[in-house]
């Protein structure tokens, strides 16, 4: 009845409510996070203390604690190594050993693969692999030549032959023979030295040997949900869209007793959230970027990066069609008018280097370090445009962000640079998926370009094929000289000849301005303070985690 009186009660109620809420929030503990923080810090110390303990006492090492890695994407999020894109190597590598081992700097290495030795026949058409004895799958069964044969034949079936590098396996391999329990021979149509790289961790997932008996018993679907391999970690659990967790095996032939008992991959799409998780102790390693890394490093966090992991370059479509792009003077002008140093500095924060080659980048076989980045000479570029009679020529620049968001900023710089030399650039923002469809249907592509990011893979015969081979559906170029060189690369008799041929192709592209490289940027990860950094290796997507959790 007396609203004034009633009104006086409310401030007290408000204060009470605010206090209750504040107390509730304050009492909500980050129990999980606290535990994990402790675990992470303990683990970081654990590494040193474990080694010290081993050195001074005879107590056997045990795996302890958990190492968490926050990634921006899980790709297809399938666990079957042959059922999805190569990017899954980030989280699949700990589960499997590759058929062919490789060192951190990209050399094939018999000591670290399932095959302890391999031999190529005199005609180059048979590779014989000698399987290491005693390698066990996570269900305790031994890996034998039969599993290798099963794996390769599985890759060649319709269900699995479309992904990653499987098409190359299918196109090159004819038959696989089990010579004895631990010897398997892979027969090819022609010499195929690239197969050794394909079956390593340097390329895709094709070298991961899967268990024949297990898959035949449970089926492909069950294997995808509960995979087993031979790696230092075995599958523990998966929460789709959230995390994948592995548990260490007791003792692994290559890494010994893994340092961490659990390895967890967390799916966290938003970068600022990943940074917050790192700072608050909810994770131990995050996929970072040139934006977030500098401040984190200043604060004492650990940088773990892979230089040259991504090449940024310009695709020039259908150069074989009459038009400005078919004129080498125009392509040269486009290359000479780009200030790559400024782009590296102001768009990518200096994290990377100016590139001299786009497809056969600094991490790829055949890369020629003597090739210098194209000069920055806008005056000459302007002259070339006028000489070619293309002043005012209209070119389209499709602007999308695939994996590297900053490419849209690069496009703004490029459009201005090219307009300044007398061209008429129409920049068209587009979503990548939609653009990709147009690529295959060859719609809207005449006289057009786009800035693209390409993973730094070791052997780039596949990408060279799809971007420049006359027979490829997506090709930018129809050049019989290139076609011949590419065929010769595919049938090179050994790795040395392959590398030489790829070098020649790279030089040919460079001299004819068939690609337009801009920069190479690093794949950046940031870890907790005190973490010992390691080399992320030479593979396109793998994190070389062996060096992180290995005791050997």
């Amino acid at each position, binding site marked *: *009845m*007396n*609203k004034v*009186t*009633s*009104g006086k*009660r*409310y401030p007290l109620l*408000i204060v009470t409510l605010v206090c209750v809420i504040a107390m509730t*929030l304050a009492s*909500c*503990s*980050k*129990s*999980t*996070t606290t535990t994990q923080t402790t675990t992470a810090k303990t683990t970081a110390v654990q590494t040193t203390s474990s080694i010290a303990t081993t050195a001074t006492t005879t107590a056997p090492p045990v795996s302890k604690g958990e190492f968490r890695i926050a990634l921006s994407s899980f790709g*297809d*999020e*399938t666990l079957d190594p042959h*059922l*999805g894109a*190569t990017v899954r190597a980030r989280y699949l590598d700990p589960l499997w050993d590759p058929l062919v081992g490789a060192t951190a700097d990209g050399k094939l290495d018999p000591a670290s693969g399932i095959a302890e030795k391999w031999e190529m026949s005199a005609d180059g058409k048979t590779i014989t692999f000698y399987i290491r004895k005693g390698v066990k799958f996570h269900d305790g069964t031994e890996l034998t030549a039969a599993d290798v044969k099963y794996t390769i034949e599985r890759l060649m079936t*319709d*269900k699995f*032959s*479309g*992904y*990653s590098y499987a*098409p190359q396996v299918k196109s090159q391999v004819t038959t696989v023979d089990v010579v004895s329990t631990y010897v398997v021979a892979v027969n090819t149509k022609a010499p195929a030295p690239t197969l050794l790289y394909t079956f390593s961790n340097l390329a895709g997932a094709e070298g991961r040997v899967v268990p024949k008996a297990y898959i035949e018993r449970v089926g492909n*679907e069950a294997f*995808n949900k509960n995979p087993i391999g031979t790696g230092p970690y075995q599958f523990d659990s998966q*929460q*789709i*869209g*959230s995390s994948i967790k592995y548990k260490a095996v007791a003792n692994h032939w290559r890494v010994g007793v893994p340092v961490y008992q659990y390895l967890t991959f*967390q*799916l*966290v*799409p*938003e970068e*600022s*959230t990943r940074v*917050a*998780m790192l*700072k*608050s*102790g*909810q994770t131990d390693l995050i996929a970072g970027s040139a934006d977030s890394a500098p401040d984190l490093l200043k604060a004492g966090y650990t940088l773990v990066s892979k230089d040259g992991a991504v090449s940024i370059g310009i695709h020039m479509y259908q150069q074989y069609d009459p038009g400005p792009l078919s004129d080498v003077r125009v392509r040269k002008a486009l290359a000479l008018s780009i200030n790559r140093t400024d782009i590296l500095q102001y768009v990518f924060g200096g994290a990377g280097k100016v590139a001299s080659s786009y497809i056969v980048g600094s991490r790829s076989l055949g890369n020629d370090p003597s090739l210098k980045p194209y000069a920055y000479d806008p005056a000459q570029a302007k002259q070339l445009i006028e000489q070619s009679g293309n002043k005012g020529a209209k070119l389209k620049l499709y602007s999308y962000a695939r994996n590297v968001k900053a490419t849209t900023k690069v496009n703004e710089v490029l459009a201005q640079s090219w307009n300044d030399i007398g061209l008429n650039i129409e920049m068209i923002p587009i979503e990548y*998926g*939609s653009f*990709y*469809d147009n*690529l*295959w249907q060859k719609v809207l592509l005449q006289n057009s370009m786009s800035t693209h990011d390409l993973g730094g893979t070791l052997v780039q015969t*596949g*990408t060279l*094929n*799809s*971007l420049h081979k006359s027979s*490829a559906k997506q090709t930018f170029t129809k050049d019989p000289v290139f076609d011949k060189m590419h065929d010769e690369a595919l049938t090179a008799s050994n790795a040395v000849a392959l590398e030489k041929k790829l070098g020649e192709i790279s030089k040919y592209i460079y001299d004819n301005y068939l690609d337009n490289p801009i920069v190479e940027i690093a794949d950046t990860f940031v870890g907790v303070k005190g973490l010992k950094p390691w080399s992320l290796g030479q593979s396109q997507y793998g994190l070389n985690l062996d060096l992180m959790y290995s005791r050997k």
Partner: protein
Amino acid sequence: MQRYIGRRLVQAVIVLLVMSAFVFAASRLLGDPVTMLLPMDAPEEARQQLRHELGLDRPLAAQYFDFVKDLAKGDLGVSVRARRPVAELLRDRLPNSVRLAAFSMLFAIPIALFLGVLSAVNRGKRLDQLSQVVAVLGQSMPAFWVGIVLIEIFSVRLDLLPAAGMGGISNFVLPGITLGLFAVAGLMRLIRSAMLESLEGEYVKLARIKGLSERVVVWKHALKNALVPAIGFVAVFFAVFLTAAITVEVVFAWPGIGRLAYEAITYKDYPLIQGVVLLMIAAVIIVNLIADIMYAYVDPRIRYS
């Protein structure tokens, strides 16, 4: 009431069927999912083979017929990306969204109720003005920004709450507040308006004349009538939280339906797009039906035939 519910269910089935056709056609407009699943240098034979395996090389009418036939059996197909049944993916992710939506409403409703009533009772005074400001701020601040700021304050600086992911009750607090804040603002304003109208009613005057305390007049008699429009609002917002919490789910790495929809669209995962959209439509229909039933309970004047 049973006849009313039965009629509404029949209508729901018709809506779902019509929308299934629309979703089926619209998802095909996104383009070819095979281009997203296979690498750039995959040969054409591999693309054709994958299209065949996914059934995408059959005529559209045949694909739609099979889709509807399977839908009737509860089979939503297999995700072209994850290679798992769509129903399984939805089953895994839907409870996460429901829990987050429920937590958000549990946060939003009491606060909105309290502030709305307080604001109405103290109309024109400082408290009312402050509440109005809070309402405007709550509705205008983008959820993306709110989430990041809350993470920075409560997780990084104060180390009180986890920054992301699902886990215990503490994992619900920040995304729940982020999602619920918008609802607090809108619901508070709605309750305020309804309360102002309610407090002017004859029955309220009668209650005061009868000597009932102001607390009973406001919180029992006036509020009950003010709740009727609020029920509809809450129902709509619950459905919105379930289906449109994409930004919150991305910021907080919450494995819910919103993020699943985003991933499905990015990868042009037709079966998953269809499954998610149909689920969202079904959720909205069910939630609205529940709201209508609650209307009848709260307001005896409402009767359905």
